[in-house]
């Protein structure tokens, strides 16, 4: 055996494709050949289709629903209305935020696009004909689209079902259209600091309503097998286990008789976290008809009725000393929740993690209050590629920093640097109660400023301004800065649950006799490449090549319980569970190896893919050998097989952060902006797969570009959704999208088993402020302090006009 050379640790490590490798994705073979399996690809024997009759108006009493013409149509099998669901107690359903929502219009409609009746038929075509034949008589009511008018004395009452309730899921209600008031921090102390401050900046920062709009819309196939009493639902679920539990609770079908499967998902971005009437109606229709029912919404339905994001009016005050040391932060937010509070937030956080709004800064005292109100708009309030309300919080503080810098006459890069939480302050407890795990903001900021040559940029900007003032150019240059701190990985069961379900996650690993493996998780990929990256975590933990590890997610009958994929929680929570389960495997493997090598357990040590005898590296057992032994050796005191499961309850959230710079040129006459540079430095802790991280950053930046520069869900005063198609709802094409520069620093999370923090959402959180700040920065010399997003052509033009730049 001596003549066989043992490959070096480095060689063996590289053969694993573990942590830090830009491993190519295993998912891609299917997707590039058109062999993905999305919900609309599922075809079951005898399957019927279902679709909704939706309300054309935003607020009305439903006087009558006549389904006779639809039912008379050949090919239409059933039409469900609230009256049909009521005996089952399914005409309303609980929302994730402790409110309830109509499944089908119960006496009135509260937003345009609301589900009124569910038509079931042979195929999409018959169903569409049926839908057009259902006659609904509406008696229109006054419409409230402005959240500031919702609480006026004579405002129409939207939610008659709870009009008299003085208490809601999150405390006292003061008006029939008021949902909750949520407070954090020190109110009096903050007011005192503001009163006595040398400088106070005061601004209203609006983060407009938008929508995650994944390319695949929401849908499901529900199949009730009456023979064995089992309900199977395939659907676009970002949290399949939570859907199973909720489905069981509201349908009374025992949870073990429900199987939820998330097949391939064509993007989620938060849109597919919630439970929608389509799922409930498909299940009921399957129970009624005894055959599988498919429901897939169309794009307009998706933009009109499924979960929106943002819509926060954030009034802020920030105080500082004359030389720029921040002394306090105050924020009052009016949150427009639409007709039902269906925000996807952990129970104790009705405004999500908005209380991360102190951002990256060491702010001694702060106060936050959020008021949620009902309006005649679609429900939702999901995190759109960000952790719960974190992009709102980050946008707020990054705007307030800019506004304060203007007031102080100080460069905002310097103001940031002056107030960053210092490296040695970590773990750092913020004024609003979060414990930031780790970071080195100054290092990241300096790297960013050097990389983009910030000083030179400011020089260029001055020159451009001069040209503009001399009438030689109609363009202004804007430099948008942002330093964000995300809070992801929800979360510790002690403070994070959704509908009472603790937000842990789990991984179960089985090593096969020949040394390959399968790992199952409670999460579900929607493009993040879990099958690739989780295998890499495991490869490094258990020394089996990533290519020999199959990853399986999304089937509640086989996967261990987990809360799913959103809020950048997969890596911080499920990734940790994966590492921990791997460590359990390794611990058992150590015992087996010691037995095989005939030494004491403590006398073997781990070496990349094997255990070797301490001091005698030539004596070893590889994981492959150990795996085989575990199946065919009777080892005293050790059970056969090599399996492990870990349920990971994270001790804390993780706090990815980053420094972004956007440079753009703005034509003041047309409002057209030309993005010259986008630089994104991310610190997501340990980097599992740099290629995938970079891809996530590109995608998130593009969503940030879209949101800040044009994307919105706009309503007119009658409550019509004016952006219901992809012509008006802005999604940039390859042509409008710039090329990005990415960069990184690496500050591992101290409490995460492998130090990873999550990255999917960072570029959206950091990007929106950077793009928006660039627009503001361009007009700063003319006195602009705040202009609301989206910064589409006409709104940018309006800024220029209002500043008198058009003569």
């Amino acid at each position, binding site marked *: 055996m001596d003549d066989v050379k043992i490959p070096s640790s480095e060689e063996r490590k590289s053969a694993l494709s573990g942590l830090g490798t830009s491993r190519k994705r295993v998912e891609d073979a299917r997707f590039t050949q058109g062999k993905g399996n999305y919900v609309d690809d599922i075809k079951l024997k005898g399957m019927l289709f279902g679709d909704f009759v939706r309300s054309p108006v935003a607020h009305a009493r439903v006087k009558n629903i006549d389904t006779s013409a639809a039912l008379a149509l050949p090919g239409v099998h059933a039409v469900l209305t609230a009256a049909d669901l009521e005996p089952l107690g399914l005409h309303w359903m609980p929302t994730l935020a402790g409110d309830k929502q109509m499944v089908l219009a119960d006496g009135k409609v509260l937003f345009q696009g609301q589900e009124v009746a569910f038509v079931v038929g042979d195929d999409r075509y018959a169903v569409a004909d049926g839908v057009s034949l259902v006659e609904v008589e509406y008696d229109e009511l006054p419409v409230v689209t402005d959240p500031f008018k919702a609480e006026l004395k004579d405002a129409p009452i939207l939610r008659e079902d709870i009009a008299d309730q003085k208490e809601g899921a999150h405390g006292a209600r003061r008006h029939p259209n008021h949902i909750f008031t949520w407070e954090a921090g020190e109110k009096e102390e903050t007011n005192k600091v503001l009163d006595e401050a040398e400088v106070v900046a005061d601004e209203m920062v609006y983060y407009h309503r938008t929508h995650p*709009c994944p390319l695949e819309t929401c849908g499901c196939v529900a199949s009730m097998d009456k023979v064995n009493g089992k309900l199977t639902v395939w659907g676009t679920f970002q949290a399949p286990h939570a859907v199973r539990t909720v489905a069981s609770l509201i349908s009374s079908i025992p949870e073990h008789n429900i199987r939820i499967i998330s097949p391939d998902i064509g993007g989620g971005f938060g849109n597919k976290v919630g439970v929608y009437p389509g799922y409930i109606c498909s299940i009921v229709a399957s129970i009624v008809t005894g055959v599988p029912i498919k429901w897939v919404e169309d794009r307009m339905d998706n933009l009109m009725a499924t979960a929106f994001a943002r819509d926060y009016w954030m009034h802020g005050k920030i105080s500082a000393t004359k030389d720029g040391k921040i002394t306090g932060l105050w924020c009052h937010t009016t949150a427009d929740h639409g007709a039902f509070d269906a925000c996807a937030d952990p129970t104790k956080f009705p405004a999500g993690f908005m209380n991360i709004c102190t951002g990256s800064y060491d702010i001694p005292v702060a106060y936050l209050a959020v008021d949620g109100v009902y309006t005649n708009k679609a429900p939702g309030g999901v995190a759109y590629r960000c952790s719960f309300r974190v992009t709102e919080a980050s946008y707020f503080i990054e705007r307030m920093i800019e506004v304060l810098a203007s007031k102080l006459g100080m460069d905002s890069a310097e103001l940031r640097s002056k107030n960053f939480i210092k490296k040695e302050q970590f773990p750092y407890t913020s004024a609003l109660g979060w414990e930031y795990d780790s970071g080195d903001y100054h290092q990241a900021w300096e790297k960013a400023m050097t990389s983009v040559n910030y000083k030179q940029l400011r020089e260029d900007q001055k020159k451009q301004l001069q040209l503009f003032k001399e009438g030689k150019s109609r363009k202004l240059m804007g430099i948008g800065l942002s330093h964000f701190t995300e809070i992801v990985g929800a979360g510790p069961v002690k403070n994070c649950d959704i509908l009472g379900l603790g937000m842990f996650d789990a991984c179960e690993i089985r090593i096969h006799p020949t040394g390959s493996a399968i790992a199952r998780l409670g999460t579900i990929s929607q493009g993040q490449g879990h099958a690739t990256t989780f295998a890499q975590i495991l490869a490094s933990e258990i020394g089996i090549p990533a290519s020999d590890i199959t990853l399986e997610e999304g089937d509640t009958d086989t996967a261990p319980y987990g809360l799913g994929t959103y809020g950048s929680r997969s890596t911080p929570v499920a990734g940790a569970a994966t590492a921990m389960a791997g460590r359990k495997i390794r611990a058992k493997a150590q015992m087996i190896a010691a037995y095989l090598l005939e030494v004491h357990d403590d006398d073997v040590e781990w070496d990349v893919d094997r255990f070797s005898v301490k001091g005698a590296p030539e004596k070893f057992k590889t994981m492959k050998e150990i795996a085989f032994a575990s199946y065919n050796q009777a080892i005293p005191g050790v059970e056969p097989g090599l399996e492990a499961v870990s349920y990971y309850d994270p001790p804390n959230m993780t706090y990815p952060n980053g420094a972004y710079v956007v440079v753009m040129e703005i034509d003041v006459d047309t409002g057209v902006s030309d993005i010259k540079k986008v630089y994104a430095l991310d610190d997501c802790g340990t980097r599992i797969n740099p290629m995938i991280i970079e891809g996530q950053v590109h995608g998130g930046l593009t969503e940030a570009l879209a949101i800040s520069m044009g994307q919105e869900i706009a309503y007119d005063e009658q409550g019509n959704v004016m952006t219901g198609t*992809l012509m008006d709802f802005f999604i940039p094409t390859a042509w409008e999208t710039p090329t990005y520069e990415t960069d990184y620093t690496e500050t591992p999370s101290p409490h995460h088993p492998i130090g990873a923090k999550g990255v999917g959402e960072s570029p959206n959180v950091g990007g929106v402020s950077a793009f928006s700040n660039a627009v503001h920065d361009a007009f700063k010399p003319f006195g602009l302090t705040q202009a609301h997003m989206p910064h589409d052509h006409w709104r940018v033009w309006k800024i220029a006009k209002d500043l008198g730049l058009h003569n």
Partner: protein
Amino acid sequence: MEKINVSMKVNGKEESLTVEPRTLLVHALREHLEYTGAHIGCSSSHCGACTIDMNGKSVKSCTVFAPQAEGAEILTVEGIGSPDKLHALQEMFKEHHGLQCGYCTPGMIMRSYRFLQENPNPTEEEVRFGISGNLCRCTGYQNIVKSIMAAASKIRDEANVEKKEIA
């Protein structure tokens, strides 16, 4: 409503189906012929997820009625490569991380497939303009553009090798 017969050649195979005239081509392909590669993203001809090749041109199959495709030669993503021999685009999308959730990918690849025949040696800017009828929500396009540029180069190299072999 009366159904009619529609014949077309899909991925080299003669297909005949009996459908209502209003049947959209994308449904004819996905539901009647079970080529589920083409996806539906917007239904309004904005997103390009349903892009296929019809008579040598890229079209959005959600905005074509099946009878309009009578006698047409259709190519879908299922028809451009095989598991044993992937098309250069399929390989390069994988190599350069040109996809994430995969939903836009078949449309994106089919558009690129035709685009590279229209312009075998494109600049990056031309690629961006050439795929501007296809939306992607995940990738920010940067790696898609990279993948297409790489595929273009691979296809050119292969063509050169073939030429040399013939010579």
